[in-house]
């Protein structure tokens, strides 16, 4: 299969697919994460909590699979990157894992018991899980863009506190607020009553925060991060990515202010998607960039699997990813009605 493609070409195609899968994950999971981040603060009673739960309940599980696909795809297409990424960032990955488990269980078990204390515990479990997921991924991706401390011979010399540079922290907070905005607008669009308007009002503020943070983050990336501009100088068309991110943030602010939830929601997703892609575009051909010297980084050609594995996976992805996207979109049409206060 795909014998007309060289191994290097397949590696490049897989890098592109890898960027797409991560992008889809971030936008698909953002509103469930955001709903979790908001739940304990904006829902005043069981009715409102149930509204929020029902707004994301049918979708979150299927959406989270994009993360599993991103991990599994990395394992299959770039085993070396999979191994190093998880080994270097051992404790952050464990925190991410705990976050994923806490979130999943909390969404499903939220009101399985009548005891208000247990219900409250799960509401906070959903919050803490969502916070861990968005914060860890935000910090981790900022570090990927900045480069990890990989010394010669692929030896990792970084430390846990070393991951929390100002740049990574801005990245983490930005991801949290992009999720918050996404969640607030989703609740605004999908529910009716007090909770919908409360979420709509909140979205106005958080969209503004996303706009400011994304400007700061992008400016920092282009000015303060070594090697970030290399690919941009070589291929100026890439500048479209950060521009679209900013345009998304502006539109999201604009529509949120006008009270038009759905276009605001889509615009915010645009920002989220292109913040991620702007960074990924900067590290190519590296997947794990080294902040010590570019030579020490792990690039896609070194990490890629065999021609056979890459082509079988490509065939599988070309057939099944569209099918998955079609039935997931179809699932959204099954639950079109706004969720009432009952």
């Amino acid at each position: 299969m795909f014998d007309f493609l060289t191994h290097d070409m397949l590696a490049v195609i897989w890098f592109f697919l890898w960027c797409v899968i991560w992008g889809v994950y971030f936008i698909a999971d953002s509103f469930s994460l955001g709903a979790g981040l908001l739940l304990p603060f904006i829902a005043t009673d069981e009715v409102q909590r149930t509204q929020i739960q029902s707004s994301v309940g049918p979708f979150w599980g299927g959406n989270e699979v994009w993360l599993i696909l991103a991990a599994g795809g990395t394992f299959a297409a770039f085993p070396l990157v999979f191994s190093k990424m998880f080994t270097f960032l051992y404790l952050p990955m464990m925190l991410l894992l705990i976050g994923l488990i806490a979130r999943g269980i909390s969404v499903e078990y939220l009101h399985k018991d009548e005891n208000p204390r247990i219900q409250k515990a799960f509401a906070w479990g959903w919050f803490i899980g969502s916070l861990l997921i968005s914060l860890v991924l935000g910090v981790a991706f900022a570090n990927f863009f900045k480069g990890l401390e990989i010394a010669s011979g692929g030896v990792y010399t970084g430390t846990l506190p070393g991951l929390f540079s100002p740049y990574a922290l801005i990245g983490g907070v930005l991801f949290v607020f992009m999720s918050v905005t996404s969640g607030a607008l989703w609740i605004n669009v999908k529910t009716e009553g007090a909770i919908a308007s409360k979420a709509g009002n909140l979205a106005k503020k958080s969209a503004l925060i996303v706009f400011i943070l994304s400007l700061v983050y992008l400016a920092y990336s282009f000015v303060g991060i070594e090697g970030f501009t290399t690919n941009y100088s070589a291929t100026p068309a890439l500048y479209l990515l950060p521009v679209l991110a900013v345009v998304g943030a502006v539109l999201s602010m604009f529509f949120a202010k006008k009270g038009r939830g759905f276009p605001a929601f889509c615009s915010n997703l645009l920002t989220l998607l292109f913040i991620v892609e702007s960074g990924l575009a900067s590290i190519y051909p590296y997947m794990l960039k080294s902040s010590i010297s570019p030579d020490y980084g792990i690039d896609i050609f070194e990490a890629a699997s065999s021609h056979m594995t890459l082509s079988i996976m490509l065939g599988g992805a070309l057939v099944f990813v569209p099918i998955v996207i079609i039935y997931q979109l179809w699932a959204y049409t099954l639950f079109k009605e706004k969720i009432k206060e009952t």
Partner: protein
Amino acid sequence: MVELILLSRLQFAITAAFHFIFVPLTLGLALLVASMETMYYRNKDETWRKMADFWGRVFKINFAVGLVSGLTLTFQFGTNWGAYAEFMGDVFGPPLAVEALLAFFLEGTFFGAWIFLDRNRQKLKTFSMWMVALGTNISSLWIITANGFMQNPVGYEMAADGSKVVMTDFFALITNGYVWYMLVHTLLSAYLLTAFLIMGICAYHFLKGNNSKVFKKSFSIAVTIALATAVMLPVLGHGYAQYVTELQPAKGAAMDAIWETGSRVPMYLIQVPDSSTGSNSVQLLGIPGLASFLYTGSFSGKITGLNQLHQDELPPVGMIFWSFRLMTVLGSLFIIEALLGLYLQKSGKLYTSDKYLKLLIWSIPLPYIAITAGWIVAEVGRQPWLVYGLLKTANGISSVPISDVLLSVALISTFYLILMVFEIYLIKKTVVNATGAE
């Protein structure tokens, strides 16, 4: 380094065993609930609706933990088994990615749809549950394909520098004989576990004097499945034992603690193996030639003894022997219980047979124990190999600070314990509160 390898193995053992507490019931109940949804859709009989509702509630609680605990395993291939991931990625990554693509998306997407679709859209609801059942059962094919390579590597060659395996034949991976033995064995035992759980829960209600149609009907379906699977498992297991003895002689010999090479090897009903002396300290009631028959297919068949195999490549014999014994003894008990259940039901004495009903309640954990024991035989029996004949377990780990692994073992174990307690509490509450009339 010894401690790091032990901790890494301990963490994987805990998380894999924990995950597999929830998987079998998911596999079995998904199919059953989907069937109940279909029956209700077809003939609008309220009993089917009540059954789908009740067993659906149990399914939901169980499914959630299975879903999230599966993530841990994927993560650990990178965090704790990085050297393994690099060695095996070319072959092991694709089944995992395909599993996500073909199975997890179906499960995840349609599980949400099934829960939130109401009975006014019964057709879609039924369809969704079938997709969940399809997804969960397809998932087992892919994960066992990945595991099958670790047990019996096929369709690969070593990279020129010997640093990793490279896939040469994807089709060979899927048609690996080991995969199909293990898949059928795993699925059958999952259905058996589901059947015994249903029988146990029904028994609880019969004992309380609640003989509602929901439980009666559930029981008669479950007892049939229990009997069919309980009988099929040892028949298949016999073939599997022969197959595995050819593939991995040490595992086969350890399953019955056969120390010396011989023909017409007896099987001892009472036996205590002792690895330090390389013999059995107790062996009584030998049935001549039975071990030869079980492991070679012929009563005069020759079995290579553990003492004649590479001594530095032997698995821990005691653990495998006792796990295997436990599994087979429990397996025999399942056949008796299922036969008895069918007889009592047909003769109409079931609802008054308090002793049998109590036995059924106490039997709920037994298939869980048997399945875990079976996995211990399969996975510990492969030691010291991580990938049989290609990579030793000790060479598969990530070099991460031992304190990090210690922390993660503690964190995950505590977290899992809380989850488990709460899950059992929720299922128990669901069962106790059900009247069969709602």
